[in-house]
């Protein structure tokens, strides 16, 4: 066993809810059986890993995959953690496992160099040495829940089990603050700009294509095709092309989303999913694209059809 590095950095923010339960359930397991129960799956694994260290050994700690890779650490090694940026009062911990931090779009640029400690270890590590009661008490604990809607029920449950404890749900962040809502709006804005831009481009292209058809339209009008008949042809043709184009676009996005995700996951070293083509998104695309495509075709054709036959046939 070798102590390879003293690490003065760790983060405990953005703990996945299940991990928070795990930490909490070890520290105060009788208090939150329901929560511990809920946190089966990965949380149970983490609990088992954390519990694996023997009493004489340094306490166990989980480090993020990024921290493990960045520092060249390995599971089983002992590291020193300090709450002080200069590395004062380090405490040894044994790495008992690593975890993939919950992807967070708000922290895309930052390396997720994090660790998860047992709550008592964390309290001890953070304790002010000049305050004898510092390691005996904890002023507050934040608990993240799987489902935000359970907050009221969870806090009243907690209060009934631990009289004297103040448990209040933190206000749910207003929608604007939810990074995913913000991202979605951003995407929608990009989408609208893209759609309008490409419609203008398409319109110009179709107007050019329509001009190539000037003589054809002139001949059709000359031999007795009605404007309405020609517009109908264009409508059917435009509908077919627009549907084919929209379906192709959705299929192309679906086929390439894996590549896009893998690239950005590699680029930002995160498990965040960047692109996901869902049925509602595909439906929205088609609902937008088809009428716009048909409209562009009709507008382009009308620029020809409103002209008189002699003008259409002139060289």
């Amino acid at each position: 066993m070798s102590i390879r590095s003293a690490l003065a950095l760790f983060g405990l923010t953005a703990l996945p809810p299940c991990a928070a339960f795990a930490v909490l359930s070890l520290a105060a397991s009788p208090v939150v059986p329901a929560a511990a129960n809920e946190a089966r799956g990965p949380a149970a694994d983490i609990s088992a890993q954390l519990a694996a260290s023997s009493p004489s050994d340094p306490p166990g700690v989980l480090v993020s995959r990024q921290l493990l890779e960045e520092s060249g650490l390995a599971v089983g090694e002992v590291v020193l953690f300090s709450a002080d940026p200069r590395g004062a009062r380090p405490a040894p911990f044994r790495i008992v496992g690593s975890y993939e931090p919950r992807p967070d779009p708000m922290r895309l640029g930052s390396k997720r160099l994090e660790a998860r400690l047992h709550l008592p270890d964390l309290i001890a590590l953070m304790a002010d040495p000049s305050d004898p009661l510092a390691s005996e008490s904890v002023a507050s604990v934040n608990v993240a829940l799987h489902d935000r809607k359970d907050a009221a029920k969870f806090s009243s449950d907690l209060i009934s089990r631990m009289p004297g404890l103040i448990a209040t749900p933190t206000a749910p962040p207003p929608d604007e603050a939810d990074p995913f809502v913000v991202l979605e709006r951003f995407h929608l804005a990009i989408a609208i700009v893209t759609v309008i831009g490409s419609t203008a481009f398409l319109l110009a292209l179709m107007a050019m294509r329509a001009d190539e058809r000037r003589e054809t339209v002139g001949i059709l009008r000359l031999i007795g095709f009605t404007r309405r008949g020609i517009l109908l042809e264009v409508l059917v043709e435009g509908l077919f092309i627009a549907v084919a184009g929209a379906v192709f676009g959705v299929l192309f996005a679906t086929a390439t989303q894996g590549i896009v995700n893998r690239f950005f996951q590699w680029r930002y070293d995160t498990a965040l999913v960047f692109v996901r083509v869902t049925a509602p998104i595909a439906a929205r695309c088609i609902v937008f694209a088809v009428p716009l495509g048909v409209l562009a075709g009709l507008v382009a054709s009308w620029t020809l059809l409103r002209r008189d036959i002699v003008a259409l046939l002139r060289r």
Partner: protein
Amino acid sequence: MNPPNTPDDGRRPTAGAGAAPPIVEAAGLTKVFPMPAGPVVALRGVSLRDDSGESIAITGPSGCGKSTLLHLLGCVDTPTEGSLAIEGRDASRLSDFERSRIRLTKIGFVFQRFFLLPMLTAWENVELPQSEAGAPKTARRARTRELLDYVGLADRAGHKPSQLSGGEMQRVAIARALANRPLLLLADEPTGELDEATGEQIVELFDRVNRDGTTLVVVTHNPILANRARRVLPMRSGRLIMESPASSIVAREEGA
């Protein structure tokens, strides 16, 4: 060989057969094109009557208004002033849709530049106006075969315009113009882009079309084609100057 308007269609009396109104009757047709540099007067009061079975040749120097007159007679364009009746119906009262129907079913067009649809074969070009007119498939097939046979291109049915010579393209155009058994065939310099020998074949074809019962108005510089017409109408500066026997007019045109 089957004529373009076979007797069995029984729609029209032969020339001069009585009370039927003229196919086209124009009175005082004037056409002014408003241009940025000032209005261009293309026609100055042209009156013309074309009875069933007739053939008329309109001759005159370039720019005198021949094409413009033909466009007005064919409901392709509208006059600025004057009246036009097609089979006794006032053309100025017709909607765009009705004018399209007239072009489709009552009037055939042949132009110097053929105006075939390049992406369609000869067969498809001839069949197209029939489809638009709603002819049933079997009738269309029979009529298309009959017409391609009539213009001597039965063996070129599957060829696109780009694979045909000028004379062949013009014969396809004539077959297409006759597709819906029109009352009237309008031709604007139909031999203009053809060499003399090929032009003569086209002249022969027009002659036959007229003999087989289709009324003809031809704008031409070709004296041979003009000579075949029953009436020759010389034109100058937007006016029909006089009506004269074909031979004298042609002689004068050539002398000019």
